[in-house]
Each structure stands twice: as C-alpha cells, then as structure tokens.
C-alpha cells in the first residue's frame, strides 16, 4: 500500500522535528475526527449486537402480538430490494459527491493559500459560506435551481434528481475539504518552504513537489471522516424525493399498510446498514490517523 517513510509516519532517529502534527483548526478547536473517533471506539462486536437486537426484538414480541412476526417477515421480503435499489443509491450519491467535493475542495483549498489576495479572499469566502450553511438548505437550492434537463442543440440530457442531490451534497463537502487542504499545507513548517525556495524552486514546484507530498497522508484521515459524515447525510435526499434507502423504506412500509409494528424493524434495519458501512471506515480512519501522526 502506501510506502512508510521514517520521520514522517514513524518515529525519527533524531530528536529534531521534521513536521508538526497535523492540526487543521488550531489546538483549541474541537476534534475534527469526532465522528470517526466515537464510532471507531465501539467494540468490534457492536454491529452483531445491534443486528441481534433488531432481529430478536420482534421475536420476543411474537408471543404477545402476532403482527410483529409479520413485520419481520415483511422486512425480510423487502430487504434485497431496499439494499439494491435503495442503499446502493446512497453509496452512489456519496461516492460522486465525494469525488466532486474533493476535486473542487482541493482547488479551493489551494486558492486559500494563493499569493493573489483576490483569489485567496474568494476561496476563503466560498469555503466559509458552504461550510457554515445547513446541508438541507443547500440541497433544496440545488434541486430547485437546477433544470431537470439540459438542452444542447437538439440533444436533451435529463438530469435525474439523484444527480442534483450529488451536486447539492458535494458543496459542503467541498468546503470542508478546502479547509483540510489549507490546514495540511500550513501544518508544514515554513522552514520547508524556505529550504525549497533557496534551492530556486518556484512556488508551484515547492507546493507540488515538497509541501503537498509531505502532508498528503495527513489529509487522508480527515478526508475519510468527511466521507463517513457525507454517507450518513445522504438520507437527507429522501426529503427531496430522491430514491434512496429511506425513501424506499417509507414506500415499503406504505406497501405493507403502514402497520405501526413495521416502524422499528424497518428503520432499525436502515440504521444498521449505515452503521455496517461506516463503522469499518471509522476504524480505518482512526488507525491511519495514529499511523500518520508524528509525535514530537
């Protein structure tokens, strides 16, 4: 996988520091990896326990009320559909939103450290705007502002709702990636800039050859953390009628006459799938964070 470099991701042989620990928000800022850290702390058997709970609960209720058994049967019947036509779309949306958010966010983050004050200010303003806006509001704006089809000459390209959701969700991700990039770059000691500049490297060369390779690995854990957050935010799209897990869950329950007994098994199942997907990501995030962190 990734090559290990002594002094960068393991302890250095000398006591002289080569790199400060990555800290995008300053030492007093709240923990940037809070979500992953919390999730990763849960023991490995948590998903099993959760699953057991969900499946055992209707069983226990079986004796008293017959419809809980039905509810469980219904869920079993719907499960493949919920996963294939529902959760897969959540993953798809999260994947593309992350892709767009990462590309735009990287550009924006580099803009934030540009020497040109106009570029810097613009990148900063865009970053702050989208970082501090409610995700749902952004989603609604994009959904309503975007045309449902794009006409180029005689070619009509339809824009399905889930694509709009991708754009809407990529905006806050972009802003947060921008901050990650900016933070990672300024976490590299200025001495590295000076050493590089005094070897006649241009600013662009310094950034791409010297600075970014040093902090690239430090960006991976916060980046993955944001992926987990994004994935867990994808059910927001159901409010806009995008077909994804939560939308289909509601439809499935309606199809089964909306018995109140369906609520717990169905929503718990949705929760479980998200957990099963995000939990390994969180564990990996924290593991990488430990590995890439240089203690001074």
């Amino acid at each position, binding site marked *: 996988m990734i090559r290990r470099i*002594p002094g960068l991701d393991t302890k*250095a042989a000398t006591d002289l520091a080569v790199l400060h620990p990555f800290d995008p928000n300053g030492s007093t800022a709240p923990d940037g990896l809070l979500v992953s850290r919390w999730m990763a702390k849960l023991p490995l058997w948590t998903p099993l326990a959760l699953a057991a709970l969900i499946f055992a609960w209707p069983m226990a209720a079986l004796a008293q009320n017959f419809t809980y058994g039905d509810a469980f049967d219904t869920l079993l019947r719907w499960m493949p559909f919920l996963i294939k036509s529902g959760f897969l779309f959540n993953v798809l949306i999260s994947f593309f939103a992350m892709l767009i958010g990462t590309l735009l966010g990287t550009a924006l983050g580099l803009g934030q450290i540009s020497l040109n004050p106009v570029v810097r200010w613009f990148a900063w303003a865009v970053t702050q705007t989208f970082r501090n806006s409610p995700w749902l509001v952004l989603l609604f704006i994009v959904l309503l502002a975007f045309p449902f089809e794009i006409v180029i000459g005689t070619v009509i390209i339809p824009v399905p709702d889930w694509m709009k959701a991708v754009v809407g969700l990529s905006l806050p991700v972009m802003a947060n990636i921008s901050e990650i990039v900016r933070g990672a770059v300024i976490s590299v000691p200025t001495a590295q800039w000076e050493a590089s500049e005094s*070897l006649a490297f241009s600013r662009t060369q310094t950034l791409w050859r010297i600075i970014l390779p*040093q902090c690239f690995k430090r960006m991976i854990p916060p980046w993955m953390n944001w992926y987990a957050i994004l994935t867990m935010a994808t059910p927001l799209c159901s409010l806009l009628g995008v077909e994804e897990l939560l939308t289909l869950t509601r439809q499935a329950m309606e199809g089964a006459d909306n018995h109140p007994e369906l609520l717990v098994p169905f929503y718990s199942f949705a929760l479980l799938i998200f957990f099963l997907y995000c939990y390994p990501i969180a564990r990996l995030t924290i593991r990488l964070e430990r590995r890439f962190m240089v203690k001074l």
Partner: protein
Amino acid sequence: MAESNWTPDQPMVSAKDVHKSFGSLEVLKGVSMDVMKGECVCVIGPSGSGKSTFIRCINGLNDIQSGSITVEGQEVNDPKLDKLSLRKKVGMVFQQYNLFPHKNAIENIMMAPVLVLKEDKDEVEARARELIRKVRLEGKEEAYPGELSGGQQQRVAIARSLAMRPDVMLFDEVTAALDPETVKEVLTTIRDLAEEGMTCILVTHEMGFAREVANQIYFTDRGVIVEHGPPATFFKEAKDPRTKEFLSQIL
C-alpha cells in the same frame, strides 16, 4: 543589466548600508560588507544582533528596506529581481538542516538540479553520488532524513546546496544544533569547501574554526557591524569594547 558588467575582481557579494526592519523593529541599521570570490567570511556576534537576518537577505528570503546588496552584480533590492536566478547562484544551509523528509538523501540532493536546472537525471545522479562521497556519507544514499543523525543530515544539506553548483554558499549557524563530536565532521566539510575556493559566508559561534579558516571576521551587535578584520588581527587587537567583551566571554 548590471549583471553582465560584473568581473571576478569586483566583490562577489557586496552589501552597502543595508537597512531592514520587521514592522517597527529595526534589525539591520546600515550593514556593509564586501566578499571577494573565493573568500571565506565569518560573521559573529551576540544572539539577536541580526546575523541570520542579514544572510537571509543575501538570497532574498528577507527583503530589505534600503541600501543595496549585489551578488555578482545582480541587485537583490530590486522589485523586478528574478529571485530564481539569484538563488541558482547562492546556496544556503540552515541551522535546522531542513531536508525534505519525504525524500531520501540522494533524492534530496538530486531534486533541485533535475527539477529546477532541468539537467539530465543520470548526470545529476553521478554528481550526487560524488557529493555524497565528498561529505563522507557513502552508504547513506538511500537513507531518509529521519534515519540520519543531525550531523549526517547537515552534511546531506550541504551536498544538496552544492549540487546546484552555486557561486556563493551561505551557512547560518549550521553546527549550532549539533553535539561537539558531530560539529567537527560538518566543519571539516565546510573547511574543505573553503580550501577548494568556494566563496563562503558563515554565521558561526565556532571561534576556532573562524580563526583557522576565515579570511575576514565580522563582528555584529544590535544591527551594525562593529568591527572586522582578518583573524590574526581581529582576535589579538580588537579595538571596540563590545568586541572585547564578547570575545572575553566566548574565548
């Protein structure tokens, strides 16, 4: 431009009445210095007197407010200064080595000639291996900075600067972070360089080295050059009371 007028009998580095402030703090208050080709100049003085600031001005890491610094006739205090062309001529070694931690020793040395000077990779590699031998680090080519001792890192840093074939080398207290044993190996490297005729400007606290190797010694205090002269006269016949006091503390 002025550059083309420069001939080797003129000073290679020439500073005239250099003033430099950080905000309202005036750090250099009219510093002048001429360094001829092949000379080795040592700058000594108490902490905070502006030694680092001065030599960082020579390669444009700090800009100056007034006065003039020329390197081979090229004016550093010029808004249209081509910093890259200046820095190709001036090598700099720092107290904290500042090697690139993600590259091993030989890559650290090869990077700038390959990427900046766009030289042929194989040629540069041959030169880099030669430089590694020169700084006595055979066998450490593939080692990362994190695997090298301070003295070894500093010698890689010197080799890295030399790989650009600079005309002048600046050394800012390059042995200050090293233990006495390793100081010697680094100073030997620098002495060899000076003896080969490299123009060197060193900020140092190593008086023994200054006495032995320097052609000129400059003593700075509070942003001015108080006194300068060749080592023989400087150490024996210091005139200024500030110099005397400093020398009595340090020798």
